[in-house]
């Protein structure tokens, strides 16, 4: 399936772009699986998703936990804990 992935704040700066279209292999069905799959892209990605940083996720503009299931056409966003207000 194909999804859109967005990055914000320090995660956007680390990966050095703000969004990309990604075609996922069939077995990548959840946020956890997506994090794991992205972490294999290289050191920057591994450092982001090795579990030492809190990386929050949203699917279609709703905050979700890492067990949330991704569907074709979804917009997935990764970002650090929010600090507005």
């Amino acid at each position: 399936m194909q999804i859109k992935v967005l990055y914000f704040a320090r995660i956007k700066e680390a990966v050095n772009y703000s969004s990309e279209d990604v075609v996922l292999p069939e077995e990548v069905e959840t946020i956890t699986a997506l994090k794991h799959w992205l972490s294999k892209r290289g050191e920057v990605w591994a450092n982001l998703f090795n579990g030492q940083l809190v990386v929050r996720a949203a699917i279609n503009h709703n905050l979700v936990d890492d067990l949330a299931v991704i569907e074709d056409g979804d917009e997935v966003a990764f970002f650090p804990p929010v600090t507005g207000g």
Partner: protein
Amino acid sequence: MIRVQTDDFDVAQILAGMRQNNPKVGAMVCFVGLVRDMNDSAEVTSLTLEHYPEMTEKSLHGIVSQAKQRWDILDAAVIHRVGTLQPTDQIVLVAITSAHRQAAFSACEFVMDYLKTQAPFWKKETNSQGARWVEAKASDDEAQVRWTQ
């Protein structure tokens, strides 16, 4: 009224609009968050707020809806600025009107606690040493969690 904007906002005008000609309003609670020049001991010269536009307003609407379900309030306003701000600038306003004060106080604090932990804004501070992303605070998570207990 929910707004995300780069421009400053006029607290007096917003409060006046919320109570105007409405004799049901007995209590109004308003929170304004401002840029401080000091955070974790480094002198802040500016603050830049990034957000996730498609998600931000949805998130704020959801928070306000929850507040309206929990308390008997008449109206709510949330305004959050994005972009680059200076010390003493206004960042955020939450204003609530209700018949009685307790609903207004609780709803206003609830909206701020949820906004701080759920709405997709990120602050980056600049000082003489450079720029750095502000860390989320455990105290904000604790403030939010107490509403769920």
